[in-house]
């Protein structure tokens, strides 16, 4: 009886661990073919809206490791979350970010992947659905979406 109770307690604690686990869902790359990363960008002067996609044909993990190694080489700090500080184009204000960005582009060139971007004049649609730069996320409540454009 004690043994059954022991198994039951292990089962409960296992279930609780998984339910409360803060780890995000991570996709199993090994079983997939092409991996596409989609991002968007626009200028506040109101000229263009860009949708960009990075298509990784093969060896996704090699490219990912190379990129993370570049950031370590350039001494990107490890954040309290355990992840390396992000490399964002908007924040390229120092030489080390510039070097990391150029190395990332070189790695992109060397690997089996490609980049495509669609450039849309902002006059074609209303960007106010995305809110203003000074608004908090909660105050920008889009009524419509532009999802169809991204297809």
């Amino acid at each position, binding site marked *: 009886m004690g043994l059954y109770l022991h198994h039951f307690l292990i089962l409960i604690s296992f279930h609780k661990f998984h339910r409360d686990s803060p780890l995000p869902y991570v996709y199993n790359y090994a079983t997939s073919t092409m991996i*596409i990363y989609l991002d968007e960008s626009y200028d506040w002067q109101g000229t263009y809206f860009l949708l960009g996609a990075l298509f990784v044909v093969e060896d996704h993990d090699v490219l990912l490791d190379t990129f993370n190694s570049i950031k370590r080489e350039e001494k990107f700090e490890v954040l309290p979350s355990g992840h390396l500080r992000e490399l964002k184009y908007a924040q*390229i204000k120092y030489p080390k970010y510039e070097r990391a960005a150029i190395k990332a582009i070189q790695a992109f060139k060397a690997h089996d992947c490609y980049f495509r971007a*669609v450039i849309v004049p902002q006059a074609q649609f209303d960007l106010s659905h995305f809110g203003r730069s000074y608004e908090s996320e909660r105050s920008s409540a889009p009524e419509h979406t532009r999802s169809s454009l991204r297809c």
Partner: protein
Amino acid sequence: MLIDYNSPCVRNGVLFADYLSRCKGALGRGDEFIEVMKERFQRVIYDHDLHPIAPKLRHIQEVDSAHDTYALLQVCDVLLGATLNGILKCHKGKRMAHKNAVTAGMQKVLELPSLMKAYWQSQVRIAQREYASNISMEDYRRATHFKYRLWFWRPK
């Protein structure tokens, strides 16, 4: 347009989109991007013999680019930002020096003849022809400007 035209013969692909925080509705309704993409790319299609054809994308997810697992979104962000900086014709002062260097570096590394609209609009027909002819991935990899392409969209 962006996905369909540029992924010839791709089946069972995976799409990771940046978590678009500014598109989230205050009442949690949010952007319908994932739903629209699933409807567009994950629908099961049958061939003439009623055999199911694998969908173009089997997994679509919004992810956080700050996570090391999805760090390649940062590469996409750098390429996109460098592109936007390159196509804008506004004044770029000293504060933009490092960004300008990355844009120039991108052009040099990828051997791009230009980032100007006139040049890339002349390339659109090539892409349309490829799509219409159901080009194979092998041929697509050998095509002009395989590594990097811009599409200046204009309404019909």
